[in-house]
């Protein structure tokens, strides 16, 4: 039995920038190993775990996808012993000065993101927030040591360790989206105790923050009949309109919009009501920015759904999440899998007159 808090803390203590998910994948692999029947890594690096269903003959397949990659920074230039950097994923540069980071050179080097004093910056930007390209990273080494170890393309991750706050809240970097990976782990533990007819493919995807690379390629291999992406959504905070957020600690959000197959939305809504699991509907006009976006249009198209965990301060090193919300997602997913009938979404779920 994996303890959820410990699992999330472990997952959010790892770097795993998009395209460099190795350390995270290894950790997820060992967590999932006792929970799946087989496991392999895809060509792009996504982790695929299979739990066989008990259905007879050709079983249908449900895909659970959560991305394991994280945002960070990347070295663009080494200058006078300091590092010039770029955002790697979308970041508000106003949070960066004073952040502790790890520079993944041949060995991991601790560093600080620094904002040069105003008089060393271009006069035109002195009154404005300083953009990433004018910030630097200092690793406290001499010019020679820096030049021999760090090069353009070296990745930099946030080194903030996870923090336990009150009320079962964890804060840290890459809660987006390691908490969803943890929700899948929780679900896999639940379905071990249940009967389910469908095959379940648990997938930790790569490169969501850049290209949805994992979400676009893994379904090609797995060919699921139903796909559920699990990601994070914006939790309410002062200064952000309520209609753009969901309250933290009051249950996951169920996606609704173009990315979402309406029949699956209906199933999850009824299921949550039936199980008395609190939830919000997240209306998503147009297309969203999650793995659901990538999965939906793979091959001949896949009925896709999105379930999200509210997280505050997304894309900062102090994203916060409530553990109950993560468990609720795990329970919902397990119950959904448990109730999947062989004829679910026959005719692709569209009702014809």
């Amino acid at each position: 039995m994996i303890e959820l808090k410990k699992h999330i803390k472990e997952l959010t203590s790892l770097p795993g920038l998009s395209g460099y998910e190795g350390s995270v994948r290894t950790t997820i692999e060992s967590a999932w190993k006792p929970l799946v029947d087989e496991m392999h890594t895809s060509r792009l690096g996504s982790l695929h775990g299979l739990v066989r269903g008990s259905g007879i003959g050709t079983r249908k397949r449900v895909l659970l996808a959560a991305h394991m990659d994280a945002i960070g920074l990347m070295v663009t230039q080494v200058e006078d012993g300091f590092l010039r950097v770029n955002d790697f994923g979308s970041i508000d540069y106003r949070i960066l000065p004073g952040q502790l980071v790890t520079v993944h050179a041949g060995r991991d080097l601790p560093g600080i993101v620094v904002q040069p004093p105003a008089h060393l910056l271009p006069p035109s930007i002195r009154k404005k927030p300083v953009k990433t390209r004018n910030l630097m990273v200092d690793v406290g080494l001499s010019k020679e040591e820096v030049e021999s170890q760090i090069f353009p393309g070296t990745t930099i991750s946030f080194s903030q360790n996870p923090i336990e706050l009150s009320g079962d809240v964890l804060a840290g970097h890459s809660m987006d989206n390691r908490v969803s990976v943890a929700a899948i782990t929780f679900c896999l533990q639940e379905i071990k105790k249940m009967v389910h007819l469908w095959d379940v493919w648990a997938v930790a995807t790569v490169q969501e923050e850049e290209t949805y690379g994992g979400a676009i390629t893994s379904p090609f291999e797995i060919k699921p009949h139903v796909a559920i992406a699990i990601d994070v959504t914006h939790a309410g905070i002062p200064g952000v309109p309520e209609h753009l957020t969901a309250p933290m600690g009051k249950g996951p959000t169920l996606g609704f919009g173009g990315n979402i197959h309406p029949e699956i939305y209906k199933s999850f809504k009824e299921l949550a009501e039936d199980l008395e699991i609190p939830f919000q509907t997240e209306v998503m006009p147009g297309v969203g920015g999650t793995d659901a976006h990538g999965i939906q249009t793979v091959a001949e198209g896949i009925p896709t759904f999105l379930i999200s965990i509210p997280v505050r301060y997304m894309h900062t090193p102090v994203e916060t999440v409530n553990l109950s919300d993560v468990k609720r997602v795990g329970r919902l997913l397990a119950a959904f899998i448990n109730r999947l009938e062989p004829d679910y979404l026959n005719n692709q779920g569209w009702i014809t007159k």
Partner: protein
Amino acid sequence: MDKSTHYSFGRDEFNLLEKLSNASSVSGDEMEVREIVIEEIKNHVDQYSIDSLGNLLAIRRAASTPFLRIMVAAHMDEVGFMILDKGEEGLYRFEKVGGIQVTHVIGKPVLVGKDKIPGVIGTKPVHLIKDEEMEQPISLEQLRIDTGLEKNGKVKPGDYVMFATKFQKLESSIMGKAFDDRLGIVSLISLLKMPPENIEILAAFTVQEELGLRGAGVAAYSLQPDAAVVMDATPAYDLPVWDKSENYLYNTRLDHGPAIYIADRAMMSDPRLINHFVMVAEKNKITHQIRQPGEGGTDAGAIHLQREGIPSISISVPTRYIHSPVSLARISDWENTYRLVSLGLKSLSASVLERG
């Protein structure tokens, strides 16, 4: 080995710096650091007391005569924050204590109050921010300290808040919060443990430096020294200039050793003391630098104006990113600063202070 010539800091000094750097001592609330200092010095001083503002004043008598009575000061306080309201669902408004840029606050972890309750300072997610909004600085009023979802939290208005940064020792550098002025505090403690024989050390571990040098003045009045040396951390702005032109406004530079002050916003260092310490540095081949005259101020600014006037000098460790969640200094600069002050005191006599 003669302990007084031992100038490389060992495990004890680094452990002490780690303990002090991680401790909370926001201006006005210096208790935790003061307690650590008392524990360290009590067996090495002839007397110590705490004055009405909270300065810790300690005296280590000279072992030989004649002797000078020299005040050596380092400030215990650091920049931080204070909680302003009762909060709403674990989210609290707060205000700065001391000079901190708001950009250094956002997305950082903090510890609140005596119980060091963990909190984070988040911000609106980038996905919900329009481009023009990104061009504007975030104001402190927009931010909250988030302590989680507990309904009846222990946080209350007036609680002091510190950055939660943990000390790290790298190969040639050290990283941590509040090196301004914990580097000076450790040096001053070391000086009391390995004192020069010819000096009565009047050690002042001062309060409220960050609020305008408020503790040091009253400490100097009480101690009535012949002269004063202030040990602090001074900014090193030795970063590249955006257009790759020469950086001639670096204030101080790492790897260039102790920064001897000549003039800042608050004072002129005493020229006799400047000459003395520069000569000591040269004689002992200690790499040293003159802090570029300009803005800024240290406790010496308040000390030199006490009573009939006190000849004073500041000798500081060049330190990057002070007043941010994490500062960075070179171990060798810190050791050499201590070494210069220690050797300078050892050779300091009344003749240095005579008017020619």
